[in-house]
């Protein structure tokens, strides 16, 4: 009897010991992880004084890159929403052969190294490319123009939106659509009047994620669109180029991108939480 009770006691002690160790270990792990992520970001922020930051803001390299990046990323996001929403909706609601295949292809740029994407885009849309040569013959250049920047951004950022949009559509109960249909609404009005307002937050969150990815695009852009201030030199390219000359400009642009990333994450978390609660 006694020995059994003793055994139970030892077991209980061991368990609580294990729980304490586990909590402690997890705490240490989380702290280390936070330090690992936060330190480089703080190092960047501390590296430049507010005065220098403001002075660099008026530097044409910084200003041109900022304007170009915001413009192209906005256009890319609009294109992505226009192209991605129907595809996400169809893949969420309709079963057809090859649906998973389509989904996989759309996801491909997520895992494709940007350098590969850049080379692939050049081989397709460059003036010697399999599509680009026909455009070039009719007098239209695609590679090394602002259009190329947008194409590269759409290519890499599309999956972020489509994944989020499809998930949002799938989360939505079909009863809303069935109710609308039973009251005589047809497919398109149902989509625009009933479905779209209900998944709005999810779609906006997806669009913002795509915007952020487009803003950060580097590898595909520098290979496919080139590096010209005011035309194709987006913020990441300007950061890379000025790092080899004017470090202040480089840091200023990095700080702006960090701020934008924070705002983006904040909005997305906020939007998605509201969506889930609904």
């Amino acid at each position, binding site marked *: 009897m006694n020995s059994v009770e003793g055994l139970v006691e030892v077991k209980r002690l061991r368990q609580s010991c294990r729980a304490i160790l586990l909590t402690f270990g997890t705490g240490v792990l989380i702290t280390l992880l936070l330090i690992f992520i936060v330190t480089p970001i703080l190092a960047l922020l501390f590296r430049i004084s507010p005065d220098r930051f403001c002075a660099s803001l008026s530097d044409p390299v910084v200003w041109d890159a900022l304007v170009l990046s915001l413009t192209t990323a906005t256009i890319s996001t609009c294109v992505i929403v226009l192209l991605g929403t129907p595809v996400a909706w169809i893949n969420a609601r309709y079963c057809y052969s090859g649906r998973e295949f389509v989904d996989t292809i759309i996801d491909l740029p997520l895992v494709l190294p940007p350098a590969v994407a850049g080379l692939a885009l050049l081989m397709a849309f460059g003036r*010697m490319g399999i599509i680009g040569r026909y455009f070039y013959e009719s007098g239209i250049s695609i590679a090394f123009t602002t259009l190329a920047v947008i194409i590269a951004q759409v290519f890499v950022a599309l999956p972020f939106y489509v994944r989020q949009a499809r998930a949002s559509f799938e989360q939505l109960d079909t009863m809303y659509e069935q109710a609308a249909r039973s009251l005589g609404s047809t497919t398109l009005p149902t989509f625009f009047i009933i479905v779209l307002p209900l998944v709005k937050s999810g779609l906006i969150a997806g669009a913002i994620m795509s915007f952020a990815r487009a803003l950060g695009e580097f590898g595909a852009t520098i290979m496919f669109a*080139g590096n*010209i201030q005011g035309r194709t*030199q987006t913020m990441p390219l300007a950061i*890379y*180029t000025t790092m080899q000359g004017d470090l202040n400009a480089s840091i200023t642009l990095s700080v702006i991108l960090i701020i934008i990333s924070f705002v983006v994450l904040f909005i997305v978390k906020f939007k998605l939480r509201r969506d889930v609660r609904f």
Partner: protein
Amino acid sequence: MRQSPFIVIAAILLAAVCISGCIGNPAQSGGDKTELTVFAAASLTEAMTDIKNDYETMHPDIRVTLNLDGSQALRTQIEQGAYADVFLSANTRHLYALRDQGLMENDTIGLFAKNRLAVIVPAANPGNIASLEDLARPGIRLVIGTKDVPVGDYARQILDKMADDDAYGPSYREAVQNNVMSEETAVTHIVAKVQLGEADAGIAYESDVSPRDRDTISMIPIPDTYNVIAEYPAGVLKCSGNRDEALHFIRYLQGEQGGEVLARYGFAKP
């Protein structure tokens, strides 16, 4: 059974580590070789690859590791604490900047090669470029270097010289600058865009049209009046732990055997 996927993954990772350990570091498994880390301007890519092989054959106890990039990028790396034994720059500006910061062994610094600039065009010559005047023709797709990479710095010096000459004038410089479709951070990127035929022309080095490239790119020389002489300095870094070996390597570059390889790739003696 539930744990088996983790065991498989762990086994794969372990195998990967072992394999990369064996392949990635032949020096460690092959005894105690001295490793010389050489930061070399991108324009030296082909020549340095040959020189590295020759040098390692002649000195079995030395392993040369090359880091090839635009000189300004290499300088930034060194300034930010990258380890290098030898720095080979495509202009004096970046190496002297390191010297002035006290990062170089000053008595080891010396020129080892000279180069000249040239206009390079794809062999098929899609832009139909036959002379320097053609670079100003509207619609020409030109690639040059950024203002910080030596090849871009030299190109700007040439355009400035031409702008000062009545035969071309400032309007020529402006027209050429308007044709620039991309500014590259290393000369190798300029050559690649021309080789791919994506650019009609690029301003690069004469040494970039190496024997093996002659069927993909051709060269339009730039007259001496406008051309600049690119001077390549070498030096041992203060942080180097192999000062003597590094200096020996530089002397080899400046000597007959190194000079022979450099000459084969279009570089001149300093």
